């Protein structure tokens, strides 16, 4: 299962940053967000102020706004169990649930959705905890393993590019990020870049919003 391997990478990284498996376990239990947990490691390393944490998390996870919108109706039949579904609606779970509804399962759909969400988190927690434990006694030099975070994001961007999802938007993101990096330097640029992207996209809405 791909999810636990990514979790393993997260566990190795957080362990390398000086946080043991308990941190990995609790992050995966309570935060439970793939890409954001990789960013979390770097937020921890840099010990950033909490306001930065809030803004970064809200924007990095902005795609979840979109995920939720497509499941408002679906989750209605789940009564209290839907709170867990909402909490655990990660990229992977969203993708799996989407294929599920495309295949048109009707019977036991609620239980199936819940099982998918729960198993996904279980894989993720297991992977990340194991990664952190392994990381504490790997016999070889792990320098350079930090690239896992970059690699994950590079893959997602390539994937979005291949799927032809708003390539202009990807480009705007790169331009904002590189400009902000040159102006504010590595430790301050993230918030500036994220803010700039929101403003620029809203300003370009008359142009970019047309096609949809």
């Amino acid at each position, binding site marked *: 299962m791909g999810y636990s*391997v*990514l979790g393993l990478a997260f566990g190795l990284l957080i362990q390398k940053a000086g946080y043991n498996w308990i*941190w990995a376990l*609790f992050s995966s239990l*309570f*935060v439970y*967000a793939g890409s954001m947990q990789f*960013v*979390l490691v*770097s937020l*921890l390393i840099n*010990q950033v102020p909490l306001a930065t944490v*809030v803004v970064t*998390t*809200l*924007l*990095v*996870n*902005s*795609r*979840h706004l979109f*995920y*939720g*919108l497509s499941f*408002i109706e679906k*989750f209605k039949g789940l009564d209290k169990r839907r709170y867990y579904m*909402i909490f655990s*609606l990660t990229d992977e779970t969203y993708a799996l649930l989407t294929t599920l509804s495309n295949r048109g399962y009707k019977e036991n759909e609620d239980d199936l959705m819940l099982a998918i969400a729960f198993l996904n988190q279980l894989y993720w927690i297991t992977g990340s905890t194991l990664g952190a434990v392994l990381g504490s006694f790997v016999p070889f*030099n*792990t320098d*350079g*393993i930090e*690239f*896992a975070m*970059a*690699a994950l*994001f*590079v893959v997602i*961007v*390539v994937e*979005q590019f291949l799927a032809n999802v*708003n390539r202009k*938007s*990807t480009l705007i*993101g*790169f331009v904002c*990020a*590189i400009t902000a*990096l040159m102006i504010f330097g*590595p430790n301050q640029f*993230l918030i500036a*870049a994220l803010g700039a*992207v*929101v403003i620029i*996209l*809203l300003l370009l*809405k008359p142009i*970019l*919003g047309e096609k*949809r």
Partner: protein
Amino acid sequence: MNIGHSLLIVAVTAISTLATRATPFILFSGKKRRVPNFIIYLSNLLPPAVMAILVVYALKELSFSSLEGYFPSLCAVGVTVVLHLIKRNTLLSIFGGVTVNMILVQHFHL
């Protein structure tokens, strides 16, 4: 590392993540409340832009003043992209990129 502040960072990340996931259910689950246009627009266009920013964020420590400062990472990015274009297997691409980066960082002191 400051344990108190680190705990707060994890807690705040957890709460903010939950907030992004719960927002659509809280705001738009009423009977006929329509989702504002600009929210739909942003939820379509923001994610790809944010991912591009995260790529730069993950590579922010690159330094162009020495070959060692950028060569391993840029090679690794190249390998990741090419592998992904050929095989389109997420784990393989990540594994390939990380391996190349580790080898270059550890063994080639340029």
